[in-house]
């Protein structure tokens, strides 16, 4: 049994499971020394879940790994890490072995890397039990199966005999969790355990974590950059900035009534839960150089409320509420930045405007290429797109949402002419476009541009920003000679980068800056439509907010239309005018954002909506999982039939669902008529 949130005892250091005191970790020596963690103090009571949040580079993972005794290349300068009163930092390497995986267990961000691909899943989990609990191989394997049942994996006996690559990402993460709880560790460290997962899978994993806490009562150190996820799982949160704890308090209070300007900035970067169209107000600037941190308040350079006296001394920790502390000289509640309230108009053309670009009955099948036996592979074809029909009007933003594997990226690539569809067509103002970009006219290519997901791989590392952005200008003949340089500088300015960036290489830019260069390159062609393929999924929330603002400004200034592909419903609701929900290569529902979010017509859309994090404990319940129904045969019936909560029976499996029409172009592909 865990104590209720408001009943948690004052976490005295004596009975704390984990007590970190004044921990400082430094990488490198002399003037090159990076002070990654500076004087962090925190304690976790038995059964408590403590969340650690901050932007990437803030040192949250460094703190977590130091609790496992991993500070590769770094040096712990001061401080102590006590597990039930025992100072872990005094342990010998052999002493650490009895702690890791046994008393402190860790769940990593990427389950694929945490599992050894060469071992069966059951054996991997049994390994820890054999090592730490002296179990026999047979007992350990039996216990592993029991653990798989505890983490709600389907068919545990069978699963224990499988290899990591044979199961889905969500299932892999469950196996990693099973491994972590195998030895009933006193402390469970979770480093972004749901970051790489789909929204529905994330909801299930978070549910599981809450459930395990209730049953096993272990203390949890939960690390995440997503405040809403943290608030949902944790009792208390600590906010790290540049290796320093700037605020700590009860989770709901930190999320709603943040006292430190940095936390307020993080909260302002969150997309509104209610779908309000207000402008986001992200934190300007980026983390300071940790080799040479300015004196005084570490956040002063980016702080909207900074006064000269902020730079005098490092602010002391102030108590601002019940068990709520903040490292800021202002003790009164700071006024919320007024800019945050600034609203933005929804944009979008009238229903009657004819579409600029349309996709008609688009099909795409993967067939495995092979020289040896090309005719044997016919059966292995799988459809990534199944009769997708969509339209986008000039200046409109069409959001496409779906889980991984739903075919949304394939759709983007078919529209951009990077993959040749196996059926159907892409039309520009009614004119059929050639399938591949190379065959299309220069004008057609110019009008559709694409921004890729991964800012690191989308820019050629050997070219300067100037070269990257100016190339499309020359290629499409939008300008020539000295005009090109002028245009390039203008484009950079449009995405809020100064001219100084012209001569920089991609490796010298941060993730957000790289993504801006990407957007500038797409804009350089002077397109009508920009396809954005998950442009913010690799970025921190504060950076995401800034990039979204840039995209919205550009839309207002240039009248460009976006096809915005994402797995994040919050982003779609925030930026898009219309939305299309994809599942397994088919569009299940499409319509105006407001309509679809308020009155979802398809069970899948409803499931996605209910899985959205709302930043409250128990506020969302993972939709129940159905495992008994057989997977639908591709091309027959409804692709969602096996997971549908409104399953009607035979009809869903056998008959392709009809298109139901609602208001304002709201369309749902389901046997059940739309509610109106």
């Amino acid at each position, binding site marked *: 049994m865990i104590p209720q949130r408001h009943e948690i005892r004052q976490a005295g250091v004596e009975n704390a499971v984990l007590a970190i005191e004044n921990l400082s970790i430094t990488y490198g020596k002399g003037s090159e020394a990076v002070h990654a963690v500076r004087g962090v103090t925190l304690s976790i009571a038995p059964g408590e879940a403590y969340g650690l949040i901050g932007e990437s580079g803030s040192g949250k993972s460094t703190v977590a790994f130091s609790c496992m005794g991993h500070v590769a290349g770094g040096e712990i300068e001061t401080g102590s890490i006590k597990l039930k009163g025992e100072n872990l930092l005094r342990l010998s390497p052999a002493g650490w072995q009895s702690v890791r995986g046994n008393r402190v267990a860790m769940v990593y961000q990427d389950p694929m890397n945490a599992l050894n691909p060469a071992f069966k899943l059951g054996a991997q989990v049994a390994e820890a039990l054999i090592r730490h609990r002296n179990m026999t191989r047979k007992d350990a394997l039996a216990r592993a199966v029991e653990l798989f049942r505890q983490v709600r994996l389907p068919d545990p006996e069978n699963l224990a005999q499988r290899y990591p690559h044979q199961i889905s990402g969500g299932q892999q993460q469950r196996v990693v969790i099973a491994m972590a709880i195998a030895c009933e560790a006193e402390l469970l460290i979770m480093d972004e355990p749901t970051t790489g997962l789909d929204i529905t899978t994330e909801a299930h994993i978070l549910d599981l974590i809450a459930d395990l806490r209730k049953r096993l009562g272990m203390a949890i150190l939960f690390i995440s950059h997503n405040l809403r996820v943290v608030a949902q799982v944790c009792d208390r949160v600590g906010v790290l900035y540049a290796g320093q704890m700037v605020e700590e308090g009860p989770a709901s209070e930190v999320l709603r009534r943040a006292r430190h300007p940095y936390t307020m900035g993080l909260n302002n970067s969150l997309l509104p839960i209610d779908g309000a169209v207000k402008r986001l107000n992200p934190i300007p600037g980026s983390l300071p150089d940790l080799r040479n941190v300015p004196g005084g308040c570490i956040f002063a350079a980016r702080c909207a409320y900074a006064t000269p006296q902020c730079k005098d001394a490092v602010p002391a920790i102030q108590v601002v509420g019940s068990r709520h502390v903040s490292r800021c000289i202002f003790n009164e509640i700071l006024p919320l930045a007024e800019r945050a309230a600034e609203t933005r108009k929804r944009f979008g053309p009238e229903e009657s405007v004819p579409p600029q670009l349309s996709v008609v009955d688009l099909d795409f099948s993967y067939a495995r290429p092979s020289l040896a036996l090309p005719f044997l592979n016919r059966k292995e074809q799988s459809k990534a797109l199944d009769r997708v029909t969509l339209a986008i009007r000039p200046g409109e933003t069409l959001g496409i949402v779906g889980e991984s594997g739903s075919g949304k990226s394939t759709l983007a690539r078919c529209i951009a002419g990077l993959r040749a569809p196996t059926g159907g067509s892409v039309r520009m103002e009614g004119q059929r476009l050639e399938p591949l970009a190379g065959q299309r006219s220069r004008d057609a*290519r110019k009008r559709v541009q*694409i921004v890729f997901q991964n800012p690191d791989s989308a820019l*050629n590392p050997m070219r300067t920003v100037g070269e990257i952005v100016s190339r499309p200008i020359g290629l499409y003949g939008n300008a020539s000679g000295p005009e090109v340089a002028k245009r390039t500088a203008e484009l950079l300015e449009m995405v809020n980068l100064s001219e100084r960036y012209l001569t920089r290489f991609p490796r010298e830019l941060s993730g957000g800056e790289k993504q801006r260069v990407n957007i500038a390159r797409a804009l350089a062609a002077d397109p009508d439509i920009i396809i954005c393929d998950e442009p913010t999924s690799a970025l921190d929330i504060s950076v995401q907010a800034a990039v979204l603002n840039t995209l919205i400004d550009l839309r207002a200034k240039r009248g460009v239309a976006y096809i915005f592909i994402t797995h994040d419903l919050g982003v779609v609701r925030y930026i898009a005018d219309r939305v299309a929900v994809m599942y397994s290569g088919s569009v299940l529902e499409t319509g105006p954002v407001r309509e679809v979010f308020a009155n979802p017509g398809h069970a899948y859309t409803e499931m996605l909506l209910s899985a959205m994090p709302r930043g409250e404990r128990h506020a969302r319940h993972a939709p129940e999982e159905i495992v008994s129904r057989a997977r639908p045969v591709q091309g027959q019936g409804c692709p969602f039939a096996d997971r549908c909560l409104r399953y009607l029976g035979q009809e869903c499996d056998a008959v392709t669902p009809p298109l139901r029409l609602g208001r304002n172009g709201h369309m749902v592909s389901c046997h059940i008529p739309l509610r109106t």
Partner: protein
Amino acid sequence: MTTVATNATDRPLARVSRTARAMLRPAELYLLFLVLLIVAGPWVAPFSAYDFNASASLLGPSWVHPFGTDEFGRDILSRVLVGARPTLLPAFAAATLGIAAGTVTGLVCGLFGGRVDELIMRSMDILLSFPALILAMLIVTMMGSSIVNLVLAMSLIFWPRSARLIRSAALEIGKREFIEACRARGESLGFILFREMLPNLRSVVIIDLALRSSYAILLSASLAYLGMGAQTPTPAWGLMVKEGQQFIQFAPWLTVFPCLVVAVIATGTVLIGESVRQRFAISTRLAR
């Protein structure tokens, strides 16, 4: 932690390229030495490499003839100096040609992947399945023992080996999204291959060239020894070893010195290749 490395104000690369340049210095000096040997070898030779001198036949090493003389009284040192050109030039030409072909092949495989890659690489495997020396000999024997044929035969040996190496690096580059961006823009094949992909493979190509050159020198000497390519009286090093070996029992300097020169030059090239490789390893690590 990565944000620190990308801080705008400092350029860690500038500092590293200084150390890199220092590491490159012996490489540059060595390269200069090779070029001098090839260009000026015949000029600095103290004696003629071709004229007979019956009164000085088979003399051991001395101050006048440091490497001794052969059965016709020709100065071995002079012959070695003159022989640099017919030995090294075909070697470097073949290495360059083979790697150029390998680079283009590798880039094409890396970009297209799939069936194109499969088809090309299996053809390369066929070439690879012949023992190198035998394949070269076969070609030279069939097509005639001219220098051009020799160079072509040797480059045919380097082509598949280089293609395989470049391909493995190109496959990774070819998957990056900036290549897709090029395709969506409608860039030409040449632009994608040589302007977008090649710069990212520069280090691999240079290292390959350096390491393969040393093997080319050995191959060139071996083929000359087997009577392919250069013919008497050209003082190609391999040929000198072949002609000198009949006297090996009482005049070993005829074979020892040309062998030694081949060994030293080939080893030197390997070491230089290695230092260039390390230099690039440092700069690519930083580029990440």
